[in-house]
């Protein structure tokens, strides 16, 4: 239950390797540990890039240039580096990275609204009850990872850059597995994780003095309760002191350590880009699961004027996502970092009367990269209008079964919900064999 603070040898090497930068030595050290027989799954991390609101797959990854005009939209397609596969003209950088991606073009579920869509996208479960009255009803992906695998390298098992994206909490797993949220604005020069270090008015000497006093005055017996809360409080406090005083952890969250060129590469003014940079720093130092809200100038939810919104968003998306993937690759992190890219659903292939596109969970695109996923795969095909899966439909549960499988988590394991019902981590999903 209580995450372990043990710094594994591998975690130490990962953390220690940082100071050498992303160069050859880092990679040498990594491959050495891999060779040392530790399982690949144990080493993996996940970054979720959530395009909340729903990006338009038909304007980005599943283009239909031959479809009638009321479907195909305004954008032209360009060649990608996979022969015969074309993507949106606004994604020149990602177009040249398709050989690293597994592009799932036929992901589906049946949640038509944002709330229900985010619920299934963040938990793998359709809400049983009205979410407006009943809230989150299953634990989020990250909470499961935190519960199953715990902390690593002195970092919480589930970190949300800024705030959790929505339905990202622990539900019946207990608030110990809520995400650790950074708060703050990563684009700001004064970005700081909330409460990670002593308040400004308290200098290090004073903080140390306080800590020593707490040791002396905090004497309530650990066995005075029945729930284990007292002991858990002590454990979390130990971890909190570790976080507060560990230079490695402080450094992991410290974006100012990145040089100007790197920060620029992720889009210095892009909240999504700088959040991704922070996510990279974290997984580089052993964080297991990090979520990033991937928003740009306009909401992805383009019921009106879809093309203006996407014309404004896609270049930022192309720039930042490609920067992250490239950076992960260069640093040798991509092979054990699974990046999941997508929204809670896609958008209607047919353009509506307001030049917009509406919600479309029936067939949309999610991209998996790295972390043991095969590279350069385009899986599933939609029908000529892009409305329904024509070949290889992939349920959203399949996507998450794949993720858990890669992390070495038995996705058929059950947890009891509030009604004592055993609920499997993933219901009705199987890992996608074609990309493993």
């Amino acid at each position, binding site marked *: 239950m209580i995450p372990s603070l043990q710094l594994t040898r591998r975690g130490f090497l990962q953390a220690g390797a940082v100071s050498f930068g992303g160069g050859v030595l880092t990679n040498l050290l990594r491959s050495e540990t891999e060779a040392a027989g530790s399982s690949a799954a144990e080493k993996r991390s996940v970054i979720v890039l959530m395009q909340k609101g729903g990006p338009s797959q038909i304007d980005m990854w599943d283009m239909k240039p031959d479809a009638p005009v009321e479907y195909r939209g305004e954008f032209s397609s360009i060649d990608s580096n996979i022969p015969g596969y074309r993507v949106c003209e606004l994604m020149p950088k990602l177009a040249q990275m398709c050989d690293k991606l597994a592009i799932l073009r036929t992901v589906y579920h049946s949640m038509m609204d944002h709330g229900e869509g985010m619920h299934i996208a963040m938990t793998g479960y359709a809400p049983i009850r009205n979410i407006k009255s009943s*809230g989150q009803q299953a634990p989020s992906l990250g909470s499961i990872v935190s519960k199953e695998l715990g902390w690593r390298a002195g970092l919480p098992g589930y970190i949300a850059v800024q705030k959790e994206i929505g339905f990202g909490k622990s539900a019946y797993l207990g608030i110990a597995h809520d995400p650790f949220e950074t708060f703050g604005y990563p684009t700001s020069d004064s970005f700081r994780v909330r409460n990670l270090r002593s*308040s400004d*008015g308290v200098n290090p000497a004073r903080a140390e003095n*306080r800590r020593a006093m707490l040791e002396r005055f905090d004497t309530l017996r650990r066995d005075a309760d029945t729930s284990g809360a007292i002991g858990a*409080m002590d454990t979390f*406090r130990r971890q909190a002191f570790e976080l507060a005083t560990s230079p490695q952890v402080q450094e992991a969250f410290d974006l100012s350590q990145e040089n100007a060129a790197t920060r620029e590469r992720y889009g210095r003014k892009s909240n999504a880009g700088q959040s991704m940079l922070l996510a990279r720093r974290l997984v580089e130092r052993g964080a297991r699961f990090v979520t990033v809200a991937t928003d740009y100038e306009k909401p992805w939810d383009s019921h009106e004027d879809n093309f203006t919104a996407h014309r404004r968003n896609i270049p930022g998306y192309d720039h930042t996502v490609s920067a992250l993937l490239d950076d992960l690759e260069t640093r040798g992190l991509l092979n054990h970092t699974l990046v999941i890219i997508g929204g809670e659903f896609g958008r209607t292939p047919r353009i509506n009367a307001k030049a917009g596109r509406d919600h479309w969970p029936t067939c949309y695109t999610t991209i998996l990269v790295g972390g043991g996923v095969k590279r350069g795969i385009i899986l599933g095909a939609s029908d000529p209008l892009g409305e329904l899966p024509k070949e290889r439909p992939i349920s959203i549960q399949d996507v998450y079964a794949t993720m858990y499988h890669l992390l070495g988590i038995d996705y058929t394991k059950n947890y009891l919900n509030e009604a004592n019902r*055993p609920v*499997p981590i993933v219901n009705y999903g199987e890992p996608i064999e074609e990309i493993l």
Partner: protein
Amino acid sequence: MRDSKNSSVVRLLGMLLLVGGFVAETSADEAVSVATSAVDPAKVTLSFTNDIVPVLSKLGCNSGNCHGKAIGQNGFKLSLFGFDPDFDYAALVHEGLGRRVSPAAPDDSLMLLKATGTMPHGGGVRLTPDSESYRLLRRWIEQGMPSGRDDEPHDVKLEVTPAERIVQGQSQQQLRVVVHYSDGSTRDVTQVARFDSQHPDILTVTPDGLVQTTGRAGETSVMVRYQNCVATSRFVSLVEQAKPESAYAAFKPKNFVDELVLAKWRKLHIVPSAEAGDAEFLRRVFLDAMGTLPTPQEVRDFVADGAPDKRDTLIDRVLQREEQFDLWAHRVGDLLRNRVGDSNGKDNTIAFAKWIRQSLVENKPYDQFVREIITVTGKRGDHPQMDWYRWAITNENRVEDTAQAFLGLRVSCANCHNHPFEKVSQTDYWQFAAFFARLKSVTYGNVDELSLNEKGEIKHPRTEQLLTPKVFGGPQFAYVAGEDPRLKLAEWLTAADNPYFARAICNRMWGHYLGVGLVDPVDDMRATNPPSNPELLDALARDFVAHKFDLKHLMKTILKSRIYGLSSTPTDDNRADTRNYARYYSRRLQPHVLLDAISSATGVPQKFEDYPEVKKAILLPNEKARSDFLEIFGRSERTTPCECETSLAPNLSQVLYLLNSDELQRKLSSKDGVLDELAKPDKLTAEVVEDLFLRTFSRRPRSDELQDAITQIESEKSPNRRTALEDLLWTLLNSKEFLFNH
């Protein structure tokens, strides 16, 4: 205690009973009479519902991870735990191209070939051809798959013996299970019942019902299920020897609560901790009853008071204070989920919160309070409690909220299938919903008016049959033109003999003051989750009803008991106790209470930007106010009536907040707080330290603590005296003695 030879006798007899349904006098500890029908078992026509389905359940075929899944398994679906025999009959006999059963050549039936692993089976080998279950299934197929008669008896009650046992150390016990049918007949179903240990670390149970205790001390039960019935067999596993009567001499019962708890301790060989000290008791009562810390002066006065009955006097006084109503209004607001959500109903929640508080101030009888909520009609302006229906939009919400909030029952399972751990069927669930069927539908948002339709029915979601209103385990009602069916529901709900209503609120109140419900969790009362002290829960409920549902009387009964005033420090004779109140169980302060405690200890009130008129967290009318603190410390989102929505579990963010947050540091360094006064140079350091201890731990410092603190503060020269005091107060606020009620 049964030896292994005897238990095998029972097993053998069980098999015979299963096959023939005839009698046998077994050697069980407490003999159970079994119906007699001395006919040749092979000639008895089997019943699908009463003979075959239980075997499918026992073998696990219809469990939630096999064919009982909502979409079945590999094209073969059964109803979950066999709750729908007609469906299962069709699935076995008519579907699968008829290959699942083959009366011409029973052994070639797919269901037997698969279950024995003769043909590949994802679920593995479930039975062997030489087993009784195999012979039974085979015989049913051979008989041409009789479906059973429409008028055949159904199961009404399960009886397990022994119902309760106290064992010492590692030992064994064979259980016997008898089902009672609607025609009065009984049958031994030990072999086909399903057994689950609630705490495998205390005892394990074999599929045949042989219990083995591990030698670990504790109380637990075995859950027994058969068809739609459930029962438990309760086990108390002792490691300690019986205690001499002198061990209990110091404990002088004050009321029936104490008597019944003491009886349990004797039985379990537990000895209570000593009485808590005065300061500890005062702090506890203030926090539990009012969500407030005592002032330093209140601590001093109480400790100095020499009256022998000062604790009872304190409780009488506390229960009249405004803060008492504030605390309970908030807790009841959680229970009734007085919530804004994403609606624009903020003003409605404020009015509802006021109505709740006013009801408490008037000490409105609890039955009346609940009736006024359930049966409300008219305009919201006249009836602020109508807001309860704002989140009880659907009939499902209404059934589940009513059941969980007022009856302590979690019935959501029965929405889709019979409750696997309680005798609440899907039909019961939807018949309960029928009480609400004539309410004019309300849409999401604000409910401004509630009225009735002349017509309106509920259909059973599976059979599509029109349902009449019926309470759990009670009579059916016909719809009467012009009459609100909810009146009948409320009448049953609040009747003196309702088996759930009074017990549910007594248990909830007990859980609030004692930390652990007699039934735990407090809103999960069911046959398979029995109370730790059933006599006590019954007695509390009886007393509560006898006193006309008087909540304040109930509070006094609990708070004035001797056990409420026990120390939280465990002894060697009660360290393992977690359910019998041999000491006070410490727990973290509730989120709103903790925030207010920090504000009062620092003397700096909390500000809520979006609720500027609210000066204390406990006075917030709903879940909505923006507050990092309340979010981090697990406030209820009020999305369900579940007690579990308010979390007292710690996590990393909480600890980081207390250690490092600017918000807390601002309170410490504020110019308006208590430290400004205490830091003045004319104050004696010893007095200042005492004051800070009284404000936080509600006690005077021990001499070593005092000395340590004085040294710490006086080693710093002015102006650093102020920061030294800040550091001391920070330390106290971060200490578990502050964060926990103990």
